[in-house]
């Protein structure tokens, strides 16, 4: 058991003198307004195992855990950011695309334990550097991830240590990856068995010795091996002495492998190995060519003498089980950082994150398995792994007490932390937050002299995790949650006052997009007056038309002007540009969508004077303007490719859609039900894209 020393207290009202000189820097800095106020332990693969055992204990004893992730990127294209016009299913598709492409490079975990004797929380912040290194040979061929240039710069701005991450990051396998690796391992073992037998059959068909050099080498090896073997047979007492008299053959040192005399075949090329194998097969029935891995996980090739066929079979079996065991050990080691996630999941503790949907999705994708296609499925699956999640962003906005407290302050993590927990930032506490209500949090540092500890910075995962935890603890205290009465066994998860916040998570930066992880349904945001005023128009997805490919000089105001000229003044509720090449237009009525699409088509087909002077002509200028109902947007988002401009993306997907449509027609063929379907469920049928290019050429 490691002696945990209390190095510093982090609330103004509580401070402990340093017990050892090693902690000096921390004490001296505690009164400054430096934002670096918590020490965070940095974990790489060097100190991972010891950290894991500490963490096991700390998680078990914890009241709650906070987590935070840093990734190599967020969006694969500008239009993949979340917009007001994104429906829940589309937001999920965007998150899914992000998670599947980018890597998580830092994982912050911070268990919080209430210490009644000190009337304070004890926190253990960790920053794990993780890197999806390929540890297994029999695994999927290539690991690849995307880096968003802007995100890399952002990480660099906060002194992210890329070298530590890439050189020393802890690798991991998801549960799904482990399962496939295991099945591959088993099947490859079976293959080896069967191929070994196959070998025996084609023994006659050895590659012919083409060059003189090969023939000479083969003869020499045959001679040497038989010499060695004869020496074994004739001089059973003293192998050693025999070796001494024959020291010119430096390559042939007798070693013992599984209690049998053997020679190590070092320093041969793979071609020579092949020749040696051939020699053994042809001339030495009592020698076995063995491939194995030694204690230092170096590959070894040996020739082993076996007494009998029985002994030989035994040897083969032993070698095989060894190899299997070795591979399983490797597999277990390759699981790596996932042990931490398994630990977090298995303890069933309350997990706290700030605006954490993306984090959760990353955790699921990297450590559990591939993301399902719908948000509902995802919610159910996550609920099984982490049954109790609290999003502090939701917490800050959901409760009126807190909301009044926060007033109109930003709910970003760092500003919420500074505002709610001024005691840590050594700022004068706000008059609204009476001192007695401030929660104390201490960080326990085990060995200050170790370079593993560093004063954390904003946007370092472990530091963000402890900030999240502090915000959570502070909000709990304002909500009247009594930490003293919460025993670790019961935990905060059964606390009445927290029940209505459990498992409600902001799905993205967008206001109003909250998901209930228990059901996978969207949950309306608890608005107050401010928000209601801010909320301009509600989005009605059926009333939306998606437009792209128009002229780059065509601005939103032109768009609105041009459309209102045709459909009347109040017809366009809003115009929203995804990027410079695409826009959403929300009409006031659903019919206007189909009216617009129909009009566009006729105008493009007409190609006469009227179509040229028509108010829409400007929008259609260039002949590349396309329009589609909202459902098409979902299809475009679900594509795995990501072009930078939305118009390019839409065209790429459009190409694939054509194929799909052909297929669809082909499948439905003569079936009459096709028309029926069209009339009943318009929304689920593929929409024909109005292709201005082809229309124009007709």
């Amino acid at each position, binding site marked *: 058991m490691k002696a945990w020393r209390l190095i510093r207290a982090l609330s103004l009202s509580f401070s402990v003198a340093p017990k050892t000189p090693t902690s000096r820097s921390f004490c001296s800095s505690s009164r400054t307004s430096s934002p670096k106020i918590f020490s965070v332990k940095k974990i790489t693969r060097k100190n991972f195992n010891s950290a894991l055992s500490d963490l096991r204990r700390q998680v078990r004893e914890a009241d709650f855990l906070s987590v935070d992730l840093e990734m*190599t*990127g967020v969006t*694969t*294209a*500008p239009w993949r950011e979340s917009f007001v016009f994104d429906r829940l299913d589309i937001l999920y598709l965007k998150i899914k695309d992000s998670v599947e*492409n980018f*890597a998580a490079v830092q994982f912050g975990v911070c268990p919080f334990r209430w210490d009644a004797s000190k009337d304070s929380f004890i926190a253990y912040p960790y920053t794990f550097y993780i*890197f*999806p*290194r*390929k540890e297994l040979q029999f695994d*999927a*061929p*290539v*690991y*690849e*991830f*995307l*880096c*968003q*240039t*802007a995100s*890399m*710069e952002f*990480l*660099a701005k906060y002194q992210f*240590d*890329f*070298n530590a*991450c*890439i*050189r020393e990051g802890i690798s991991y396998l998801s549960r799904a990856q482990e399962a496939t690796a295991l099945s591959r391992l088993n*099947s*490859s073992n079976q*293959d080896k068995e069967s*191929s070994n037998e*196959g070998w025996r059959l084609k023994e006659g068909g050895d*590659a012919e010795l083409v060059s003189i050099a090969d023939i000479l080498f083969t003869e020499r090896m045959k001679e040497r091996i038989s010499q060695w073997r004869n020496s074994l047979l004739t001089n059973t007492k003293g192998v050693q002495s025999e070796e001494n008299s024959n020291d010119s053959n430096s390559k042939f040192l007798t070693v013992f492998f599984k209690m049998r005399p053997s020679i190590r075949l070092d320093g041969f090329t*793979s*071609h020579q190995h*092949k020749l040696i194998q051939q020699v053994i097969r042809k001339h030495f029935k009592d020698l076995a060519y063995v491939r194995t891995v030694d204690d230092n996980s170096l590959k070894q090739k040996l020739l082993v003498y076996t007494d009998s066929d029985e002994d030989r079979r035994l040897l083969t079996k032993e070698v095989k089980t060894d190899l299997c065991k070795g591979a399983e050990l490797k597999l277990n080691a390759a699981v790596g950082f996932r042990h931490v996630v398994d630990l977090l999941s298995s303890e069933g503790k309350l997990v706290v994150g700030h605006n954490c949907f993306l984090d959760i999705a990353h955790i699921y994708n990297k450590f559990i398995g591939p993301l399902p296609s719908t948000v509902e499925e995802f919610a159910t699956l996550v609920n099984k792994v982490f049954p109790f999640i609290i999003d502090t962003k939701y917490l800050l906005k959901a409760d009126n007490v807190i909301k009044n407290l926060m007033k109109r302050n930003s709910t970003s993590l760092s500003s919420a932390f500074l505002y709610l927990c001024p005691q840590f930032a050594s700022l004068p506490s706000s008059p609204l937050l009476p001192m007695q209500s401030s929660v104390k949090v201490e960080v326990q540092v085990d060995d200050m002299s170790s370079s593993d500890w560093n004063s954390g910075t904003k946007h370092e995962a472990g530091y963000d995790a402890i900030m999240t935890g502090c915000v959570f603890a502070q909000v709990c205290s304002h909500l009247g949650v009594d930490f003293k009465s919460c025993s670790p066994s019961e935990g905060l998860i059964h606390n009445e006052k927290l029940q209505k916040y459990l498992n409600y998570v902001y799905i993205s930066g967008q206001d109003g997009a909250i998901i209930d992880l228990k059901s996978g349904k969207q949950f309306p945001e608890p608005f107050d007056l401010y928000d209601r005023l801010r909320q301009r128009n509600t989005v009605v997805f059926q009333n939306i038309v998606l437009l792209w490919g128009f002229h780059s*000089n065509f601005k939103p105001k032109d768009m609105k002007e041009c459309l209102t000229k045709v459909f009347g003044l109040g017809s366009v509720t809003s115009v929203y540009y995804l990027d410079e090449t695409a826009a959403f237009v929300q009409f006031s009525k659903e019919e206007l969508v189909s009216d617009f699409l129909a009009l566009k088509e006729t105008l493009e087909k007409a190609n006469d004077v009227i179509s040229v002077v028509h108010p829409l002509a400007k929008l259609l200028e260039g002949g590349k303007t396309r329009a589609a109902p909202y459902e098409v947007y979902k299809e475009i988002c679900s594509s795995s490719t990501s072009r*930078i401009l939305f118009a390019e993306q839409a065209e790429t997907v459009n*190409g*694939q859609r*054509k*194929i799909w449509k*052909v*297929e669809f027609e082909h499948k439905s063929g003569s079936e009459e039900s096709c028309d029926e379907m069209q009339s009943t469920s318009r929304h689920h049928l593929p929409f024909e894209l109005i292709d201005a290019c082809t229309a124009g050429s007709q």
Partner: protein
Amino acid sequence: MRARLLQKRRLCTLNHQQQQQQQQQQQQKPCRRRPVTQVTKPNFAQSLQTLKAQIASADYIAVSTCKTGSFASPWRRVLPFLDTADTAYFKSKHAAERFQVLQFAVCPFTVSESKVAAHPYNFHLFPRDELNVGIPPSYSFSCQTSYLTNMAREGFDFNSCIYDGISYLSRVQETFAKNRLGKPLGGIYPMKSSSTHSVADSLFLERIKSRVRNWMNACKDKKESEGPEDGLVRSLRKLILGVELHGSRPCMIIDVCNERQVQLVLEMLSKFSSDLVPLVIPGKGGEPQAVRVVLASSEEDKNLLERELQDVEDEEIRKIRGFREVIDAISSSQKPIVAFDCLHEFTFIHSKFVAPLPHCRNDFMCSLRMVFPHILDVNHLLKEIGPLKKAGNVPAAFAHLKRRFFIPIDMEIPHQAPDDESDSHGHRVLLTVNLFAKLSSILKTTHADLADFPDKNAESLERYMNIFTPSSIGLQEQPEEENVWMNETARVSTEDLVFIWGFKHGMPAEQLKSCLCGTHDVFSEYFDVRLADKSCAILVFWKPGLAKILLDAMDSGSVGCDSLRELVSEGLKASGYEAYKRVCSLGLWETDLADSLDRSLTEQLQECNMDADCGKKAMEVYWSSDSINLDEL
């Protein structure tokens, strides 16, 4: 022994002083690699200057890049037994668009006899949005973890690369960025001779003229009074008169609505006073928003100001182009460029520094030739001296050549990098130089006609120019297999290839072959099986027509061939080369080739996306000697 001999030889050619130096160095650092100047943001401007001079005096320029990845799964590599020139291009294009170049080594060198003088530089790059105009060189890029791990093992400093790497914009991006930034200098604006003025124009001009006159008078008044002016007075003056300062000189803003008004203002100003320097300020969309008029105190002052503005612009351009200045310097020198695996290297270079890669290979070759007219592929030179099985990368090729030939090359690197710097990065470019020097000397001795040009190396190598030979093996070598394929150069028409998939994942080729034998008459003839990856294999029929028979048989449900039918019901699928071509040209890149081919089959696309010449005519896969020849265009 040989090493010592070589060393001796080298020492003889050096003068005494150098000898001593070298000996000292060798004593100090016995295993030190050759020094390569490492370039990051802080020393970029300085290195660029020296490099430009060295490029000008060099015979050749060797380049070599270090990327974040190359081919995401085994079959997506360029495989000589599988790819035509077109599919090889598509594969390289896909990689070039996906991955990022983090290190770019450039080495101008001269060759005379066996002496090579080289000036190696290694530039560290990072595609940062340096100008903050929302045009990063790349929005995102992909990384293969194995590549990053390898770089880490070599001691590559990722922090310095991401913090201090040099950014760049491609030529196409530069035009885009310039449009967005607008034109900073008035002088750039073409002055049109005066056309007739409308009434509105005259009104506008008169108004501006009086404003400028008032302003100039006010400035002169101020100069005359010359009293010390406090901040309040200055800001009041600014409010009332619209007097602002451009640096230390007074200036004034004239708002304009369009290009026409800009013209009018410039014209008026040039007539008005010789001390005025106009600057057009662009709006967000690049259209002119206002004209800033700066008042110079004298003619000399005006010249000074104009020079300052020019410097600012140059600085801006340097900021925009960044590392691409190196590419431009190489390009404008018109010197022959030497590289290993040129198809791969130059698809990267083209897509990062020139323009997005065109869809068709011919367009790429044309476009590339405009920028780099002379490219020498070391792979191709290697092939010229005989088939090399294992020359997949530079070190392997180097080792191989060293075993076969004794060609002492005396490498001299006059410029010494500072000692404290890590110099292990970018040494691959020096190996390339060495390899090239060796190869050209071999080629010269074996081909008598080349020996006639002892001095003009470039001319003597003209026949090897611009032919790309993709190298087959990437970083990781494939596990050893019985290699019937490479023994001789054979050509197989793509019509005689059949892709099969749907067999057990990872089944060895031999086993697959024995499975197939006897299931159909075509298999009684001699055929080969080669795995493209673990999920898919290629059958090669050496007798024409058999491939089609097999495909037809499988399409028709293999009537009358129970054993083949059995395989098909087990899931075996087959297609001709068309499906594979479609996979490459449409970019249906899945991890397993089998999945890609399945997608290709289900997505029967119209020809619209297919290039005309990627059409139906059968092409030849050059068995182990696939080359792309620029001169065939």
